[in-house]
């Protein structure tokens, strides 16, 4: 019981197995061992950014974790864009609904639909729209154009 109270025996026991001496920082050794990181710090200091944001950015960009995160974000954005495009493809059906050709607007089917929607006024409006969107007739034509 007393022996446990005396903590010295434990210190002795630990120091027997591991080095418990005060750690000393050897800058030269560290520079050699971590030459790339050292160089980055030196480069950062030499950059002109007062806030050091660009330097941080370059460090951040060189981080593997950040690279992975960036890749994930790019993939997510790409997926989002592709998805948007595909949903736009679905919408083109709706667009085609509005932009049917003038000829298609004058078919029995199309005019029946117009009549169901808005009666004879809608039918006449559809005729007007179809004829209005057709290429206008030339007001004059030369003999050469006529023969060609």
């Amino acid at each position: 019981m007393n022996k446990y109270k005396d903590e010295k025996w434990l210190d002795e026991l630990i120091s027997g197995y591991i080095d418990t001496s005060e750690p000393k920082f050897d800058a030269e050794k560290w520079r050699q061992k971590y030459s790339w990181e050292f160089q980055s710090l030196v480069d950062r200091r030499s950059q002109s950014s007062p806030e050091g944001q660009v330097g941080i950015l370059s460090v951040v960009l060189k981080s593997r974790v950040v690279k992975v995160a960036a890749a994930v974000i790019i993939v997510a954005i790409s997926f989002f864009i592709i998805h948007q495009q595909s949903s736009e493809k679905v919408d083109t059906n709706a667009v085609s609904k509005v932009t049917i050709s003038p000829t298609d607007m004058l078919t029995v089917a199309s005019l029946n639909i117009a009549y169901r929607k808005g009666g004879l006024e809608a039918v006449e409006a559809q005729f007007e729209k179809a004829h209005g969107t057709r290429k206008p007739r030339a007001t004059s034509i030369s003999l050469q154009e006529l023969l060609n």
Partner: protein
Amino acid sequence: MRATSNKRLPKVIYVTLTLLVSTSQVFAYPPDNAAVLYYRACQWYQAEPEMEQMLSDLSRGKIELNPKIKKLVRSNKHAIDFAVAASGVTHCDWGMDYSKGMSTLLPPLHTFKKLARLMIADAKIMVEKGDYTSAIDRCLSVEKFARHVSDRNMMNYLLGLAINGEADKYIQDILANMPEDLDMLNWLKNQLVQIDGNSFSFEICVDDANETAILFMTKLDNIKALLPVENWEVPSSLSKTAEKWIFAADKQFLVRNRGYWEGLIRNIKAALDMPYPKAYQELKRLCEKPEKDIIENPDATLTLMLLPAFDKSYGVGIRGENLPNAVRAAIEIYIVKAKTGHLPNALPSGLPKDLFSGEDFEYKKMKGGFVLRCRVKDLGKDMVHEYQFKVTK
């Protein structure tokens, strides 16, 4: 001698035949198809949108004849001449390829209506000059034009009735303002009897819609081309259901859908034999039926998408055909007035009927003229129509 005459004979026959054939070609005007001339009238017709609006306002009685309209009529003389010449031709074939079914392209019906308004404006100019006979004759040309326009197709039928309405409304106006003239009235009556020999027919339009839809429902490719369903006048709540059935469509789907369509058309035709109020209600019910059925019955899909608005067009048809009946009945009353000097106390017998009730119009004398009133409400408009006819003192 005999040999010489034998040589001459073929030459004489040849020359005679050549002359006969060439002269018949020179004088072959008007052509035996009125549509050719109507299309030429459309080719010559020219009016700015502002002037077309003015013609429409003139037709609706919103404005009076003015110098701009007179100028427009003058500048469209060729168009009017072609249309008048066309109206005198019995046969009219618009050259529509009905074998294309739902894709059949229709003639420029909206321009026909504008042409008719232009012709009526011309008649108004004639009345202003006091030339009532020519004005009525112009209206009769429009009536013939209307019957030419009315074809087996529903749109032609409806636009034909609209054009006919333009003419009848103006005849009604002329009768109210022209000096009493028994000969003219008898001539008008006889002309109308001849014109009415070629009457409008809603039943033919139903038959045409039936044939067109059946033709359409024979090919699976046609059905797939119905997608996206949004292009069709399908209620948005049902479009997903319709799309689902069409995606899964096969030949059996076509057969069953044709069966559903044919059953509905049989009922629609049966409804047309009923008196107006019942027929209208029944057509309304039948036209709404596919919307209710499609939720659980895929066989209703194509009928929902292809069925024309028979209920609406039937109502418009009755309304459009009733005005000519009122005008023709009124002419008889004007004749009685011209003969006796007084309006009759009761409607003469054997006159055209009120199509809403199937009975005679309700006749009522009033100050300065008389009224022909329908006996049953127009269910589409929720009103009882009255046609007023003024009498010159």
